[in-house]
């Protein structure tokens, strides 16, 4: 069994100390907010989708890559997800959260669906090499403007996650990025089910509480 990639939570050495984070991209003065862009998409304005794509395609693709570990599949899914965003925009409600949250939830679901389909195909007889060894890692791509916009937020969130014991990080990684159930995580890590549940609960609570503290700084 190839070793799973550790949830990449370590701090970047080139990024220093906590600063005030932004939970969305830093928007230039005069540029529309995410919510305004979502309203534009709901009005079927392609330019609004274009702008939202420019703002978040890197984050969404990183999420997809973290799940599927395949550049070509990630590109296909990225396109499908933004197409779905266009088609489903009328279902978005600001009362239920921010546009980025909605996009991430949608992207994660699609990526995990894609992963499960691929795993079912593999079980049917295909043998693939260790994906994590052959596929580029979303964490090592060159910096983009979008990345720079998000770097403060990323450092702070990674500090919160990195404060967790590795076993809690691993359990959360498998649940969130692999879509595994507690039982699947228990089997995958050869750990009692009750321990997995405790690790998930404690880890998620620490992250949640940490995010609340960050929110107070916003």
């Amino acid at each position, binding site marked *: 069994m190839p070793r799973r990639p550790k949830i*990449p939570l370590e701090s970047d050495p080139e990024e220093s100390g906590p600063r005030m984070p932004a939970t969305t991209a830093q928007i230039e003065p005069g540029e529309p907010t995410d919510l305004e862009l979502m309203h534009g998409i709901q009005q079927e304005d392609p330019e609004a989708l274009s702008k939202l794509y420019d703002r978040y395609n890197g984050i969404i693709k990183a999420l997809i890559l973290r799940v599927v570990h395949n550049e070509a599949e990630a590109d296909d899914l990225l396109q499908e997800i933004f197409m779905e965003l*266009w088609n489903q925009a009328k279902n978005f409600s600001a009362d239920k959260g921010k546009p980025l*949250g909605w996009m991430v939830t949608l992207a994660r679901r699609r990526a995990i669906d894609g992963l499960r389909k691929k795993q079912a195909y593999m079980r049917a007889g295909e043998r693939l090499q260790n994906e994590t060894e052959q596929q580029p890692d979303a964490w090592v791509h060159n910096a983009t403007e979008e990345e720079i916009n998000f770097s403060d937020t990323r450092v702070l969130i990674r500090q919160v996650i990195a404060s967790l014991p590795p076993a809690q990080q691993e359990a959360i990684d498998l*649940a969130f990025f692999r879509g595994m159930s507690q039982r699947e995580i228990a089997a995958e890590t050869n750990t009692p089910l009750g321990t997995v549940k405790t690790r998930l609960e404690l880890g*998620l609570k620490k992250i949640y509480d940490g995010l609340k503290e960050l929110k107070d700084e916003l």
Partner: protein
Amino acid sequence: MSFDEFQNRARLYVIGALENGESREFEEARSHFGQEAEDFITECYRLHEAFALSLRPAKSSDALKERLMKMVRERKQGETR
């Protein structure tokens, strides 16, 4: 189920990690706690954003965006005909 326990379950719920038996209990508690529960669940979805934002953005090609925008414009034109 206490509200503290509900909060623990809610965090598992938003990442899809509740087991079947837990899901049933969770839904009962969700109904019992009403709007307070819904507000907490909405807040828990911030975890999704946080996990995504913890990743280093990945690069995609300009061609991908061009294909997407072409599909969107064609879809829009098709609907207005």
